[in-house]
């Protein structure tokens, strides 16, 4: 029985076994991109809007389902809100393939740590692991392929509150107080968040349903202003929440009823 003591570090486990790390993948495998093709199109699957908003006791994530390549709509059922474990959600904007690969890596890294060390990885440890994955992905991002930006939402049991973090492409991490958004539509709706907070008060003091309604409105505005963002009329967006009870999906029925109610009020 050969044991390599990794102390729960999944990247060491797979490095020692020469399995491919998502963040250390050689750029040469993408060499065809630089040979005559514009680095951003049509390989980039980029535009989207994902939103993380606090509510009383947790964080809500809402994301549209559209995946685009240049101005073509490639897929209208992409899931961009992904549970990393039962207490952590990640919302992704940017290159879908790289993002999915990195979330797969992160899921395994968190599980591996929990199961081998018999204690869950701390929130700070998880945030650090994401920074590492993003820093490793930087060469891809710089070459115009594989840039993605995650927004992380977690329930912090020590503080009994939801917490939101966003990252830049190099892995720098920032915590926000009330909300975060990423994707091509996010910049366009930034002012709406500020307006809502100024007029209604902080999201973190409102119940989930109220925040969900605002989240859907924000998504609708983003879809109106950004061609790469799908709205909620044709295909329902993804909505997941994380609080003391863990990660849960907002059911289609809840979303449908809420949208109906909002449409009637128009």
């Amino acid at each position, binding site marked *: *029985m*050969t*044991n*390599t*003591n*990794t102390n729960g570090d*999944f990247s060491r*486990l*797979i490095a020692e*076994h020469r*399995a491919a790390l998502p963040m250390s993948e050689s750029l040469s495998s993408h060499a065809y991109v630089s040979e005559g093709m514009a680095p951003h199109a049509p390989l980039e699957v980029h535009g989207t809007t994902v939103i993380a908003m606090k509510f009383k006791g947790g964080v809500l994530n809402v994301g549209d389902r559209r995946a685009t390549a240049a101005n073509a709509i490639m897929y209208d059922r992409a899931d961009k809100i992904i*549970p*990393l*474990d*039962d207490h952590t959600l990640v919302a992704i904007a940017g290159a879908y393939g790289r993002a999915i690969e990195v979330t*797969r*890596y992160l*899921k*395994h890294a968190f*599980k*591996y740590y929990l*199961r*081998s060390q*018999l204690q869950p990885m701390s929130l700070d440890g998880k945030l650090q692991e994401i920074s590492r994955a993003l820093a490793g992905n930087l060469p891809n991002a710089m070459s115009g392929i594989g840039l993605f930006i995650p927004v992380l939402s977690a329930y912090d049991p020590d503080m009994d509150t939801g917490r939101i973090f966003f990252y830049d492409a190099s892995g720098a991490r920032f915590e926000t107080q009330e909300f975060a958004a990423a994707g091509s539509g996010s910049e366009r709706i930034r002012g709406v968040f500020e307006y809502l907070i100024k007029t209604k008060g902080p999201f973190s003091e409102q119940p989930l349903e109220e925040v969900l309604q605002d989240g859907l409105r924000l998504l609708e505005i983003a879809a109106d202003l950004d061609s790469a963002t799908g709205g909620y009329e044709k295909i329902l967006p993804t909505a997941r929440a994380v609080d003391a009870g*863990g*990660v*849960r*999906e907002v059911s289609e029925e809840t979303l449908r009823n809420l949208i109906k109610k909002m449409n009637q009020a128009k």
Partner: protein
Amino acid sequence: MLTPYDFQENISQRAQYIEQRLREGSPVIGISFTDGLLLFSLKRRGRKVYEIYDQLMFSAIGNQSDIETMRLAAIDFTHKEGYARSPDDVTIQRVVGSALSPALKKGFGDAMTTPFVMRSIFAELGPQPERDLFYVLNYDGEFFQQERFAVVGGSYQAEDSAIKSLEDAYGKKVPTFEKSLPLAIIAWGIAREAAVGEGLAGVSEERARQRVREEVESASLEVGVLERNTTKESRFRLVPHETLEKYLQHL
């Protein structure tokens, strides 16, 4: 130089040494129920039932550090495989049959190493109870598959007694969690009594209950469950102490 005679003697001495040391171990009972799969044991100190992978659980009797080595080897293999391919490719057959058993066998046959003192049980959750699997892995690398329930105990005879009681009690219909836990408690008592008690000629159910009542004074129950129908990322949970207390009151 080793002669064939020495080889045989060495192997049987090793086996004898290991089996002697396993006798005192707290048995582990595995039962498949409607909504999941459980591994049951009594522990004096430390953990006894462990999560290995999304659908895999593990427990063992034997030397604590050997159990730890085996546990980490299983976790390393499953996570590496699950990441390189898919979690669906991580099966109990691959973990026990290909990854662990040959390594154990090699260690056991090597006269220059200390042998693993351990008999372990792996459990795999299926989409339906009929597809749940148990693998019992012996210290010499031998393993066999069981369905519905499985036992590791301090002696082979103890395991047989407990298996027999489960065969009689399990019935044709897959039990619920509430029904399967009492079965596990009795089977544990039988296996324990048969391994360390005095009466070798079969253990009565009453004697088994008595044994559990006595031992629970200085030990606590541990039950690990893999849930079949859940939307959670993790299917594994340790059943809380308060829930288990209930079952002991009616013992």
